[in-house]
């Protein structure tokens, strides 16, 4: 019995073992299943996540596409606007160029006209000068001849200004050094006497004066040099006249006319003299050039006129 039992036991054990194994297998299977289930769930989650991401990416791509399209549309629109603006600018540039050409032409015409006007003024003054000369030639009274000659020279000094103006590139200002040289030569020629040899020494800086300053300045020089030629050298064989114009501090010019003649009369007083020449000089210097005048008499006569540079004064006024 015991043997039987002993013999049965292994059989039982084997069955039990098989059962246990089956159970273990089933449990393992269940575990694997559970694990697979969990893994599947995870995978399903991942797939779901991926689906979301894909959808999001598609959405983003779509948005990007839309942005891209919008950008392209805006670029096109901007390009069109720029093209139109460019065309407008080109047209405007063309119009401005035309206008500029018209302005330049008009400027040239006006310059030519101004040149012609200066030429006409010079010619008219020349006619006045000739009329005075014609009158002079019919006059026997030396005193009247002298008066007419003085008047003729005043007119000539102004004609010379206009002559220099139409010859100058600027048309509004003249090179005064050239002018003084020409004026001095004309005056010496006009008052020349066979017995008197005059040397004129012109020392004028290269300054450009506008008409407003040049005319009174020329009349002053005309009067001063004429006075020298008429009164400074009585009974003399030769004489020297010097004309100097230079810049002085304070944006001013100093005009100095000297001679080595007999000097001014002892009782000479510019404030009381009845001489038209001296009154012209004084009034033009003080009232028109807004300057000062000084008469001196040492070894000959010396007259100094100091006046402001009207060009600089005007520039300062504009700057203010």
């Amino acid at each position, binding site marked *: 019995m015991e043997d039987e039992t002993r013999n049965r036991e292994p059989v039982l054990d084997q069955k039990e073992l098989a059962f246990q194994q089956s159970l273990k297998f089933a449990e393992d299977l269940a575990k694997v299943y559970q694990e697979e289930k969990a893994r599947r769930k995870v995978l399903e989650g991942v797939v779901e996540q991926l689906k979301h991401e894909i959808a999001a990416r598609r959405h983003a791509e779509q948005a990007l596409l839309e942005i891209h399209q919008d950008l392209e549309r805006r670029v096109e629109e901007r390009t069109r606007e720029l093209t139109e603006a460019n065309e407008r600018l080109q047209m405007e540039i063309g119009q401005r160029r035309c206008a500029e050409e018209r302005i330049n032409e008009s400027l040239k015409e006006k310059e030519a006209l101004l040149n012609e006007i200066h030429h006409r003024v*010079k*010619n008219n003054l*020349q*006619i006045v*000068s*000739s*009329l005075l*000369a*014609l009158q002079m*030639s019919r006059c026997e009274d030396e005193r009247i001849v002298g008066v007419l000659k003085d008047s003729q020279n005043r007119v*000539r000094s102004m004609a010379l200004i206009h*002559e220099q103006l139409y*010859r100058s590139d600027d048309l509004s200002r003249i090179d005064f050094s050239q002018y003084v040289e*020409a004026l001095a030569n*004309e005056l010496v*020629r006009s008052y020349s006497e066979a017995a008197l040899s005059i040397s004129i020494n012109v020392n004028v800086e290269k300054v450009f004066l506008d008409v407003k300053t040049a005319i009174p300045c020329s009349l002053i020089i005309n009067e001063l040099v004429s006075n020298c030629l008429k009164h400074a050298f009585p009974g003399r064989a030769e004489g020297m006249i010097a004309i100097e114009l230079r810049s002085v501090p304070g944006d001013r010019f100093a005009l100095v006319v000297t001679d080595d003649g007999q000097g001014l009369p002892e009782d000479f007083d510019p404030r009381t003299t009845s001489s038209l020449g001296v009154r012209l000089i004084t009034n033009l210097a003080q009232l028109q050039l807004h300057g000062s005048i000084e008469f001196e008499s040492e070894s000959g006569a010396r007259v100094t006129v100091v006046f402001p540079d009207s060009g600089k004064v005007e520039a300062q006024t504009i700057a203010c």
Partner: protein
Amino acid sequence: MLKPSILIVEDEIVVAMELEEKLSRMGYRVRGTVASGEAALDFVETDPPDVVLMDIRLEGDMDGIQAARVILEHHNIPVIYLTAHADERTLERAKLTEPFGYLVKPFSETGLRTTIEVAVYKHGETNR
């Protein structure tokens, strides 16, 4: 010796009158005064002077330089230009016509006499 006869070509008649008087006082015979290049050509055709004093800027289509060229080439009369201080371009044009002298306005008697006498002398030498 007889002083040369002169034709004045100047479109400013008052200026021409002054010049005419001055020349007459100096003993020159002023044959006439005309105001244009065309009138100058007509004048020298019928009554040729010894010398022509010619203003450069003249009224009419023909300026003094054009008239001077014809007078010199066709009539062999010396021409002296009367100018204000002319511009460079005008002087260059004037030079090409080989004038016998220039007189710059206003004219002094000495300048007039010297220029006219030199012109007449030079012209005589050229024609020898």
